[in-house]
């Protein structure tokens, strides 16, 4: 069936008004030889049947118990308060378009203004846009902003190898068509010092992630001074949950902070939709991509909100726009706003601390097992909620046995992205993991190692 409401009588009346006798006559401009193809699609089904079919499909997936999954690597299981989905399910929000008519869009505009405010406070930066698609595309847009600031004289982007491999891949795709070079991540094991040594007059930006892909805090102190001395921008990829307790990118002198906000009340949902967070300094506001919500007043002096500085955007500036982005991730930004409002200052701090303590408990327990090493590459660097484990057996084998014998979804196999980390697994622990769940993982790893 369809959701078309027309009765036969209404249809006839409308066709008569138009002056045609049948609905097919409306398509005279469509070349006859291609008109009305017979589509090879499964036949239509009812609402009951589609629910059944989708439940069957969903039922063929494992990993639906977050406390038995230790996968992170850019998407995380965190607690989502019931308030978040309550807000998301308001039809006035989720069935609206981009708020181009502000008089009837004050709800989403104010929510986005509050989102921008929270992102500025969390990152310690001055301006946040209203969202990007995901963390990786936010990073790619940050790199484009840096190249724009460099005005063609600076074309080198230094990417730390400890930035999420998929983020680096997306940046490289985004730069395919324009004169820019990416350097710094040739050697997957290289540290920050190597990256610093590559800074020069052609560098537009240096990109680091902290906590990095391996879960560790990078030594950011003093980095911005070096980067700025070279005339480049410092771009920091971060984890918004960590910002509940740990120093924000702005405090380290970052020019741009980007992150994926999926951890803020959005389900992993097999990879999307997620939320691209993008914050920077006011100096770059006119080079920023994406929507911005600004405060103003109506003609009676009442406070209100509008999309602003739109001359940066594609619908006005066309070929000279800062970006092509139009649709973004507003509903996810709304989720993050509701999440952070519910959590508040104390709640987010507690989530961050629980992640820290539980992951350290897990790391210490695994480190005690024979044949396992934790963070062997940099054992002294502090970490947040993820850590690297060197396994006594291949990661694929460990993952398979965890799943088949213990019903546990293991960590991320680092070998394919980092050749020097064969037999290494990245394990994520959050506030959703009880001590018992962690103990089960540790016991399972011990069994598998035997």
């Amino acid at each position, binding site marked *: 069936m369809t*959701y*078309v409401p*027309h009765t036969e009588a209404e249809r006839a009346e*409308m066709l008569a008004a*138009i002056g045609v006798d049948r609905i097919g006559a409306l398509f005279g401009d469509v070349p006859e030889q291609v008109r*009305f193809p017979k589509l090879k*699609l*499964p036949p239509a*089904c009812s609402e009951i049947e589609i629910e059944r079919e989708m439940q069957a*499909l969903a039922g*063929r997936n*494992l*990993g639906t118990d977050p406390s038995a999954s230790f996968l992170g690597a*850019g*998407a995380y299981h965190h607690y989502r*308060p019931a308030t978040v*989905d309550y807000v998301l399910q308001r*039809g006035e*929000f989720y069935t*609206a*378009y981009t708020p181009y*008519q502000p008089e009837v*869009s004050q*709800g*989403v505009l104010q929510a986005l203004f*509050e989102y921008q405010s929270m992102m500025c*406070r969390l990152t310690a930066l001055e301006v*946040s846009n209203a969202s990007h*698609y995901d963390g990786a595309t936010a990073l790619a847009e940050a790199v484009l902003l840096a190249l724009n600031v460099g005005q063609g004289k600076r074309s080198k982007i230094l990417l730390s190898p400890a930035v999420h491999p998929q983020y680096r891949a997306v940046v490289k*795709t*985004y730069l395919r*068509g324009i004169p820019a070079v990416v350097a710094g991540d040739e050697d997957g094991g290289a540290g920050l010092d190597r990256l610093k040594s590559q800074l020069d007059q052609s560098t537009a930006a240096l990109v680091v992630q902290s906590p990095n892909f391996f879960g560790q805090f990078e030594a950011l102190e003093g980095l911005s001074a070096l980067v700025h001395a070279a005339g480049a921008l410092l771009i920091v990829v971060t984890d918004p949950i960590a910002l509940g307790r*740990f*120093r924000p990118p702005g405090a380290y002198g970052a020019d741009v902070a980007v992150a994926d906000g999926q951890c803020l009340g959005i389900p992993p*949902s*097999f990879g999307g939709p997620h939320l691209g967070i993008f914050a920077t300094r006011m100096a770059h*506001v006119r080079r920023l991509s994406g929507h*911005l919500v*600004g*405060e*103003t007043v109506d*003609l*009676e002096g*009442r406070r209100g909100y509008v999309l602003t500085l739109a001359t940066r955007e594609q619908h006005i500036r066309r*070929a000279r726009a800062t970006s*092509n*982005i139009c649709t*973004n*991730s*507003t*509903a996810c930004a*709304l989720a993050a*706003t509701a999440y952070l*409002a519910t959590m*508040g*200052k104390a709640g987010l701090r507690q*989530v961050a601390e629980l992640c820290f303590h*539980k992951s350290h408990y897990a790391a210490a327990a695994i480190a005690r097992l024979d044949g396992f090493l934790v963070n062997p590459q940099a054992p002294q660097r502090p970490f947040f909620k993820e850590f690297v484990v060197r396994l006594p057996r291949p990661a694929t084998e460990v993952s398979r046995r965890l*799943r088949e014998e213990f019903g546990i*979804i293991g960590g991320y196999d680092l070998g394919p992205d980092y050749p020097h980390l064969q037999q290494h697994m990245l394990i994520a622990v959050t506030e959703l993991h009880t001590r018992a769940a962690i103990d089960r993982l540790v016991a399972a790893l011990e069994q598998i190692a035997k």
Partner: protein
Amino acid sequence: MKSGANAMPADKIRSKAAIIPTLYEQSVRGRRGIDLPDADVPEAPMPAEELNLDCDLPELSQLDVVRHFLALSQRNFGIDTGFYPLGSCTMKYNPKVNEQIARLAGFAETHPLQDPESVQGNLELMFSLQQWLAEIGGFAGVSLQPAAGAHGEFTGLLMMRAYHRDRGELERTRILIPDSAHGTNPASTTMAGFTAVELPSDARGNIDLDAVRAACDRTVAGIMMTNPNTLGLFEEHIGEVVRLVHDCGGLVYGDGANLNALAGIARPGDLGFDVMHFNLHKTFATPHGGGGPGAGPVGVSAKLADFLPGPVIDIARGENGAARYLPAEPTKSIGRVSTFGGNFGMFVRAYAYIRRHGGAGLRANSEHAVLNANYLRIKLRDTFRVPFDRMNMHEFVCQGAVESTGIRALDISKRLLDYGFHPPTNYFPLIVPEALMIEPTETESKPTLDAFVAAMQAIAAETQSDPGLVKGAPYSTPVRRLDEVRAARAVVLADRAKAAAG
């Protein structure tokens, strides 16, 4: 907002509590919205040098939070609120069952980096959706990865670039774009490293064929066509345009924003398009979300299939004939355009939508979308001038200016708000002065369309009887016209209130 609201002075009909304090303004030190369990593990020493002093988030009770967002939602207009004829945006009904399905734990809780063996349901869903979109569009391959329409355009253009470079044709640097195109087309072109060349439209609203002919040479990488175009008109010379571009070695990109006129009516691939993005949030009714997230999968002809962003989902048959789904990298892939596999939550909804409709249902959707749009054009054309007045597809453009009164399209739009309708798209396409671009979609009934026509006619009468009334609209909304100049000059982009002051 009631239909036909009169022009009573604003302060008489609006609540005194018109301003909703921000979350920061409502913050009170020490309030909590949620509790979390105490740590059940020993506390580990935290690195002092990495700790922040304060995280400046507001502090509210849970009821504060709920009331805040409920109040905000009540000052927002969605499809669920009322008729939303926003041209080029396809604001059709978003089925509620799809929202329920997308929240099933078996979908929502799965992690994108799980072993393929543990997510065969997800991968089968993605594989099927790829197949169905390819069938609907007439394409050889589909990648679901792009997150939005503009993202799909960028992806398509990068594939076109890679295709030409693969053939050693580095001189192909220009992309032809009609002057009626969406702004994303030229913006995506620049991002992909091409030069956008704007081509004029002819007197019937088609792209000017002579201009296409004159522009086609060895420097052309391709053309970006929206068909039906943004005037809502099927391009009458599409076959010739495609032939001209192909003959000079270029490729044809299709902006799929208007696919709601064509699904089941004609396949862009059959018309000769080489690549097109699908807006799942338009044609396949995944919600617009107040501006996103959407999903913008790309479909391609055989010559571009190897260049798709990877991974795509492939199928293999086991020894017992059982299907097994797994990610695969196209041989000449342009690489990733987003993390993981794209906006999976939208794939679930689009899958359910296509399954509910089948091929005949999709065709019926397009037919009724076109029926509704033509009906509105016929009913409105004597009131508001329709510059290209011929049989249209799923949308049409009229002009909102009323001579000698100074009334503009913007005024008509704002007055519509008082009648309880969301306005059409304003001032687009750029080639029509004072454009009002109207797309009713198929899910609106005749009584709704008739009520809209009546409102438009009433407003037209008001422009004669009391133009000041129209110029001052809206009156019944939570705020009246907002000072956009001030917003762009004062530039207040974040709340100045300090959380938990006092």
